[in-house]
């Protein structure tokens, strides 16, 4: 194999691939990226056995072929090469080396045979649809903060993507929860997505996917089966196993009858929460919300370090009430609101609280209170 490629193009392709590779690896081949060159295309493939990413780039291929080298080493080298340089990759299969040449630099990297590289089995997908990058970006960006890290409830370690009924008809919905917070984000259902099986997209996949979604104009081809999900652009294909488990029936835990309505400027609210939380120890930051007519008092009382209080002008017309939350949870859901006011719906100090973004029905958050 011998090919030449522009440094910037190579860096983009290799960086996507190397981020999938697990840093602490016991199987040597899994630390490698598979490079395949044919016609005028070079393809970089990396996997952790759960996720596989394939990145294609245009290159001048002199001699077709394939080899594998350490992904992080290759990435580091390319990153340090001067911008605009032309990089030549030459595989010497007899010596088991890949040479990387650019300008005056010359590297020789150890390779492993391509036959040893585990390529993810291709599978049949039940559903194939296309979605605009900004739509997917919103679905996952707004839900991923609530993904659980608790290994014992592994079925919560991802975003549950499925088709659901909402007021305006069927929607494509993403839900994540760790038991303390829940995010439920809806988007218009692409017609071909109807009938899609519900899948739990693992946390790491959500992180990798994000890199495909930066381009506002991009259309993403999504394919879903009971066991796998695939996201593809013309350059990148990301294939991932989905979490083999049943996502709990979240509809039962979303309160329907919370009537005490508080409307507040989201960023003012977030800043105030952040300020009062400063005095509390980092671990258990409980913020108390005291509500009365058009007034919200936020307070923190940390026995060892001190106390803080801040008053906000809000829209509230119900009975006086007091409720406590973990400051971090409040900040996280408040930061999901981008344009509208944050609307909180309370029931009592012991019940889950709902938050919405203004009158937007397509995003809903639930947060559990702390007893203060």
């Amino acid at each position: 194999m011998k090919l030449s490629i522009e440094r910037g193009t190579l860096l983009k392709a290799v960086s996507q691939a190397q981020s999938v590779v697990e840093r602490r690896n016991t199987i040597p081949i899994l630390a490698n990226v598979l490079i395949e060159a044919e016609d005028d295309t070079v393809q970089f493939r990396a996997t952790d056995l759960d996720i596989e990413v394939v990145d294609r780039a245009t290159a001048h291929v002199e001699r077709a072929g394939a080899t594998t080298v350490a992904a992080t080493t290759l990435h580091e080298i390319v990153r340090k090469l001067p911008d605009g340089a032309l990089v030549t990759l030459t595989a010497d299969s007899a010596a088991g080396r890949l040479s990387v040449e650019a300008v005056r630099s010359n590297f020789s990297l150890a390779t492993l045979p391509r036959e040893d590289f585990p390529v993810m089995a291709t599978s049949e997908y039940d559903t194939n649809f296309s979605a605009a990058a900004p739509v997917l970006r919103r679905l996952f960006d707004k839900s991923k903060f609530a993904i659980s890290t608790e290994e014992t409830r592994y079925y919560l370690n991802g975003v549950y993507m499925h088709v659901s009924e909402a007021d305006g008809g069927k929607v494509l919905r993403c839900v994540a929860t760790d038991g303390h917070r829940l995010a439920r984000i809806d988007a218009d259902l692409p017609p071909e997505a109807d009938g899609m099986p519900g899948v739990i997209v693992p946390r790491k996949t959500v992180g990798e996917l994000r890199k495909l979604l930066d381009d506002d104009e991009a259309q993403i081809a999504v394919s879903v089966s009971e066991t796998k999900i695939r996201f593809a652009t013309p350059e990148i294909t990301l294939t991932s196993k989905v979490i083999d488990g049943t996502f709990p029936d979240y509809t039962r835990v979303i309160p329907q009858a919370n009537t005490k309505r508080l409307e507040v400027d989201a960023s003012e609210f977030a800043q105030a929460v952040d300020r009062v939380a400063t005095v509390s120890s980092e671990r258990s930051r409980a913020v108390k919300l005291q509500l009365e007519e058009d007034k919200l008092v936020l307070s923190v009382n940390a026995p060892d370090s001190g106390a803080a209080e801040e008053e906000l002008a809000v829209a509230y017309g119900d009975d006086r009430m007091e409720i406590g939350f973990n400051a971090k949870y409040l900040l996280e859901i408040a930061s999901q609101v981008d344009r509208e006011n944050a609307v909180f719906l309370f029931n009592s100090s012991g019940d889950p609280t709902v938050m919405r973004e203004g009158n937007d029905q397509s995003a809903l958050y639930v947060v559990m209170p702390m007893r203060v």
Partner: protein
Amino acid sequence: MPALCRDCLTELESVSRCTACGSPRVLAHPELFSLSIAHMDCDAFYASVEKRDDPSLADKPVIIGGGKRGVVSTACYVARIRGVRSAMPMFKALELCPDAVIIKPRMSVYAEVSKQIRAMMDELTPIVEPLSLDEAFMDLAGTERLHGAPPAIMLARLVRRMQSELGLTGSIGLSHNKFLAKVASDLDKPRGFSIIGKAETADFLRDQPVSLIWGVGAVSREALEKAGIRTFSDLLRWDREELSARFGSMGDRLWHLARGQDARRVSGSDPMKSISNETTFFEDIADPDLLDGYLWRMAAKVADRAKAKGITGRVVTLKLKRSDHRIITRRQSLREPTQLADTLYRRARALFDNVQDPGPFRLLGCGLSDLSKADETEESGDLLDPQFGQRSEAERATDAIRERFGSDAIVKGRSLR
């Protein structure tokens, strides 16, 4: 040379017998009145408490420990003469000393006595660092003006008071750092008072085995022996870099200790790092229900201690020991710290279910670490576990009842398994 009568506390000038009371227990040392770091170690503590509380045991060999396959926790000096040592398997102790009286440890009694001793030590100095119920370091530097007497006299008074008021004896080691103070307290047990002065440190250590170092157990000793290190003089032949390269962080410490240097401070309030509880079964257990009962009781005990100390923890640990003595530990971090038995038990139980080892097990334990001070707040509820709020309130209510009517006043059915 300054000297001191350990019985009547009279300051003397180097004599072999006290001129005031005639006691032969005279302590003489050139640095007697200038050293201030002490280690106090009670003599056969558990056994001595038992003998004190039951005078009929006075001349009998007494062993504290228990269970069919228990080990000796403490042996009194009568039993020690027969060769019984702590940590020895009980059957072996009984072979050596068939007429021994075996007593199950009464930890709550020992803890109470320990508190009384601690109170006496607190009167000497604010810097007391307990190592266990029956031993502690004390730093008496700068207390001479306060007490009107040098540390050596105050320490002799402490053990005299322990004997007269509590009926227990202890041994004192006095030196210029923690390592040597601890070594000294062991030199002349029981009722000992030993001093290792600065001037004699090098001479004293030279021919001592490295196993003298606290923390050098069988494994480290083997590693040291492989390197040809048996005594302190062997250690002195090594460069600091060589020791560090070979033994890591322990190497640097060894280099200093070889020279009798130990910069660790006696720290009065060493923060607690974890709370845990474990139990070795009489017979190995595989029955999940039975194990579940133990797990709940362990969790409840840990939670009780956390609550009593006003502490919460963020990491739950499960420990299992299989029949082949292999230890399995699993841990999980929580998003918010807890002190609830319910949370601790449920997380430990989830960890247990994930272990996927059918057992049988010989030991089970659970613990809480990454501790912080508890405040008024309870953990956030769990959307997917709507009963959590009720259970945590029930636990607080149960605690209130137990506080008033005793810890057995109300228990969960699960704890009776």
